[in-house]
């Protein structure tokens, strides 16, 4: 795994941009589809040896489009009340999911996706089981990059945004042993943290640490809006307090963030105020994921004028430099 990871981000670094591996249409086999807590699931997909190389070279921050249109609904009693009406709707389009992990075991490659049930497609997704085939298009978009000269990376997630940052944590710790990696995981409330394992025994000052990050040797700091776990308040407030407490040179640090748009906007502001490098993984409704439909526009500052321009989340992103994005909230 180390060699693959190394190749990945080093290539990125050498090229100065995150050139993605060739995208393709795959048929993957579900190996695990497991519920985590009340709202979250982890889907693990297995790719055959013939397909493994393309997937093994994908980068943290990249994503895949899954076709869930032929997937069955769960039984009526398992459908949350707020989704009863939309559950009957047929699914047409694929749905985008970031990679939460990619592992190579022998000649097989396994890809993890973290998801929560928010609509008719993710509701159906809960019913796929080990052995089922899923049509996947990927790897798509551009992943996170590591600029030269950084020694501290801060991963800031909100809710499901933790997915791509888990994979990033793995690759950063494997490839850049000199980097200190700290994860800030936020959610509205403790039950909305998309994690399985709590490792209180190795916990830091806040008494709540996440096994998913700890297994890569990454310290995690939890924040919940309602104070039900970790820091009481927004994860962005937790981040600013941490930054206030640690006198570090801005040029040594970089923030990687993924989560709700309002959170990303605030993270971008914090980065701007403190002159920190910052990369954001954005989310948009998208039809194709491969740059055809032009649906997933992200408003960005134009380089040559005061006007704004639209970039595509699927093709130009989903990872953007925080300085280029224009938030309208």
């Amino acid at each position, binding site marked *: 795994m180390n060699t693959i990871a190394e190749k990945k981000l080093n290539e990125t670094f050498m090229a100065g941009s995150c050139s993605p591996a060739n*995208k*393709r*249409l795959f048929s993957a086999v579900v190996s695990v589809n497991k519920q985590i807590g009340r709202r979250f699931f982890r889907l693990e997909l297995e790719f055959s040896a013939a397909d493994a190389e393309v997937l093994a070279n994908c980068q943290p921050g990249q994503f895949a489009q899954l076709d869930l249109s032929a997937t069955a609904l769960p039984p009526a009693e398992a459908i949350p009340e707020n989704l009863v009406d939309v559950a009957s709707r047929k699914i*047409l*389009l694929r749905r985008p999911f970031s990679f939460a992990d990619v592992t190579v075991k022998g000649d097989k490659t396994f890809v993890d996706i973290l998801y929560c049930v928010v609509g008719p497609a993710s509701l159906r997704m809960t019913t796929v089981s080990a052995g089922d085939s899923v049509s996947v298009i990927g790897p798509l978009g551009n992943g996170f990059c590591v600029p030269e000269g950084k020694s501290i990376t801060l991963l800031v997630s909100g809710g499901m945004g933790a997915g791509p940052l888990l994979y990033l944590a793995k690759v950063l710790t494997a490839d850049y042993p000199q980097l200190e990696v700290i994860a800030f995981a936020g959610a509205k409330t403790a039950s909305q943290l998309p994690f399985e394992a709590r490792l209180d025994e190795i916990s830091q000052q806040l008494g709540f640490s996440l096994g998913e990050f700890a297994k890569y040797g990454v310290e995690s700091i939890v924040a919940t809006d309602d104070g039900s776990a970790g820091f009481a308040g927004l994860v962005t407030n937790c981040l600013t307090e941490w930054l206030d407490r640690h006198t570090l040179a801005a040029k040594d640090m970089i923030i990687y963030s993924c989560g709700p748009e309002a959170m990303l906007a605030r993270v971008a502001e914090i980065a701007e105020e403190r002159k920190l490098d910052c990369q954001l993984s954005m989310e948009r409704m998208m039809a*194709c994921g491969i740059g055809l*439909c032009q649906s997933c*526009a992200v408003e960005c500052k134009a380089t040559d004028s005061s006007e704004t321009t*639209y970039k595509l989340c699927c093709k130009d992103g989903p990872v953007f430099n925080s300085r280029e994005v224009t938030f309208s909230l």
Partner: protein
Amino acid sequence: MKENIDISVDFAGIQLSNPVFTASGTCGYADELADFMDINCLGGFITKSITLKPRKGNATPRIVETDSGMLNAIGLANIGLDAFIEEKLPVIEQLSVPVFVNAAGENIDEYVAVVQRLAAEKAIAGFELNISCPNVAKGGLSFGTDPAQVAEITSTVKKAVGEKVLMVKLSPAVTNIGVIARAAVDAGADALSLVNTFTAMVIDIETGRPVLANRTGGLSGPAIKPIAVHLVNKVYNEVAKDCGIPILGLGGIRTASDAIEFIIAGASAVAVGTANFIEPGCAVKIVEGIEKYCVRKEITNIKELVGSLEVK
């Protein structure tokens, strides 16, 4: 291709190896689908709409999924004519498939400007005149709903296309599509493509607001297919059949069976649109499926199938 089956099409004088196009706005400018299929295996390729100046497009959300369909309100976002010529034309020149440029504008002069600049390009087989985009404030659909305006824009642009084929793309959002089709043909259209998307709306009942930033969008996908088949058949019977003008049929096609319905209804060729988003490469599978159908039904030339609808 099977030796005894001919699925090639003479489309207004252009020889197509088969009747399957990819539809404008769903297949990029040139080779964006190359990771998923050999674009030269298509019968024809239609670019994203090109306007004289670059267009940013509409605010987001620009799409929303509906039952068996989707609404889009992209707003003709495109790189503009100059960038198209500089960046995309060299790629198109490498393709052997006949390429049509979908031309759009806010006024007739803009359509003419786009077509005039490209009319001399060897790599371009023809133009698709977009007078049916429902998602822009000026131009687009407003040209496509009034027979007099359809005639004016078609005849004016026809003078600018030179030897190239001029195909006019019709909107379904009219009282009588036959009248619009007649106006386009009488004004010099060499081919017709139909249908563009249907103007539609989805409302978020929690906020009481439309989901799309543009309020309305164009409905595409399997949901519109039976209506599109009907409209193709109507235009074939009322206009195209007698004057020998070919129809490019589209609207919700995602399988060979869907494509064959359009051909039986009167389309000489078909275009795959929304389905490219879900299975990018499905157009090539549709070509194979049409061949298999011809073998099974002992059809030696696809022409036999065009407009072959049996009505008692």
